[in-house]
């Protein structure tokens, strides 16, 4: 496969609330990924950083910030921002450099130091910014949108709050086995049901927290991997970073209204379906080929939505699939064996990179107690504000 790039190294700084700056977490993750790859920083000709909007100016030039902290030495640098998909877009940029022959090995780093409570828009008076407007006019927080989607599933498909709680129970079991996860204790359905309502019908334990964390990957050409002695590396076979297609009939963060489908019929695929679809097409695989999936469970109900958008089951059947145990440990297609965002809390620019770290360890058979037996092919999927989504397919 000429389009493949090798994952030589994966590294993370544990998720949590550590009270330090994002650079620290990124550097720790980068050093871990370099050690995992068996490479010294001085051997890396290019670094791509996934930006954070919460780290001041250094956060918006994250590539340079990490390069400087690691010891600036003239490497090619790039900084990427794509909301929740920033990490995957950084991977996409690194892969493009390798496939274009610009350089043979690239370090990808993302890290965040998250605030307490709801994510809020940048300050000032900015009525031209939909993200500012949705807070100003409606007080529509991120959980409010997750709740709208959850309620819609309840009405359309008969999903119940108990189904949503079961997602949390499943992911908490997986997260308890992950040393990088922030939340590492099992959670019962009763505990989810007893947690306070944040946005009806979603409760505190249905919604992912915001965390500090850092994740990094060392990617290379297959040639470089071979010369470096990595005989059978995990390979990234597809990276999808598609935009939505107009008109989108689904209400997307941070919009106050959907597109109108009156003048032009809706696109045949929803945006989330197209995120996975483009990755499947590029990789030449389908959902039936997957050993595992890491999806962006910003809420419990959103994890169920991803089952359908990834084609793991037909629309409306996600809760039934969950109840069979197919997406849990030992199931046919484990979803979020890392513990997911439920166990991590979101560290925005690091999260999509962390998803690929998990795929890497799973495909290498290095995932310890959370190992998916015989994992061969995995996919990650996420979606961020303003029509940013991504999916990465990795194989071994």
């Amino acid at each position, binding site marked *: 496969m000429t389009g493949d790039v090798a994952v030589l190294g994966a590294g993370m700084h544990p998720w949590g609330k550590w009270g330090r700056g994002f650079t620290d977490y990124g550097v720790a993750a980068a050093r871990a990924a370099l050690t995992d790859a068996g490479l010294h920083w001085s051997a890396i000709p290019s670094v791509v950083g996934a930006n954070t909007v919460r780290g001041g100016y250094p956060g918006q030039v994250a590539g340079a910030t990490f390069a400087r902290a690691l010891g600036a030495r003239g490497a090619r640098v790039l900084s990427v921002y794509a909301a929740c998909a920033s990490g995957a877009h950084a991977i996409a940029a690194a892969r493009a450099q390798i496939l274009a022959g610009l350089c043979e090995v690239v370090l990808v780093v993302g890290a965040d130091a998250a605030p307490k409570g709801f994510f809020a828009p940048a300050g000032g008076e900015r009525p031209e910014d939909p993200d500012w407007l*949705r807070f100003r006019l*409606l007080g529509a927080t991120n959980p409010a949108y997750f709740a709208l989607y959850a309620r819609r599933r309840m009405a359309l498909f008969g999903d119940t709050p108990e189904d949503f709680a079961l997602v949390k129970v499943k992911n908490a079991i997986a997260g308890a086995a992950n040393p990088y996860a922030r939340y590492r204790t099992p959670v019962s359905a009763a505990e989810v049901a007893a947690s306070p309502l944040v946005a009806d019908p979603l409760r505190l334990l249905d919604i992912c927290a915001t965390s500090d964390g850092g994740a990094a990957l060392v990617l290379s050409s297959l040639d470089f991997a071979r010369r470096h002695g990595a005989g059978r590396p995990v390979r990234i076979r597809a990276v999808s970073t598609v935009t939505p297609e107009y*008109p989108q009939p689904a209400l997307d963060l941070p919009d106050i209204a*959907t597109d109108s489908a*009156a003048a032009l019929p809706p696109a045949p695929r929803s945006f989330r379906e197209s995120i996975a679809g483009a990755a499947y097409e590029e990789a030449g695989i389908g959902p039936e080929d997957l050993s595992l999936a890491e999806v962006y469970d910003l809420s419990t109900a959103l994890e169920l939505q991803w089952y359908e958008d990834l084609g793991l089951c037909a629309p409306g059947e996600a809760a039934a699939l969950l109840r069979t145990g197919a997406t849990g440990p030992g199931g046919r297609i484990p979803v979020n064996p890392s513990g997911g965002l439920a166990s991590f809390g979101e560290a925005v620019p690091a999260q999509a990179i962390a998803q690929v770290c998990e795929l890497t360890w799973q495909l290498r058979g290095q995932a310890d107690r959370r190992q998916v037996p015989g994992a061969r092919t995995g996919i990650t999927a996420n979606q961020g504000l303003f029509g940013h989504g991504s999916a990465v397919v990795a194989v071994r």
Partner: protein
Amino acid sequence: MARTRTPVVSGWFTEHPATEADFHLIGTRCRTCAAVFFPREDTCCRNPRCAGTELTGVALSRRGRVWSYTDGRYRPPAPYPSDPLLPWRPYTLVAVELAAERMVVLGQGAPGVTPADLRVGREMEVVPGVLYEDAERTWTTWHWRPVGWDRG
């Protein structure tokens, strides 16, 4: 002293409706392809098959059906206007599907409307509402209210 009524965002809804029935959300329609936009697009049509640049204001349907709904149990961060010294009162958010426009528009529920009053598919109408008041101004907005609502 009487406060001035000021729309919280300008050009999105009827500013001085004589009656509730005169109140509309205002979007724009492309003169080339007839695509409708809310919030309004004024310079450039977003239909990828159209290069239209002339868009004119259009009143959106006053009624639609609940697509989904939720509430805010915790105080949202700024710039949502809210006095942190006062106890938080949850508000309801309603996403309403307009049949003619084939689009979904979010809004807060009218005062007193709670999730318990709603179900997906219930018919709603847009009504003038107040987002908040400060010393000089009453900041106006749009609200969704169930058709036939007789409480509050």
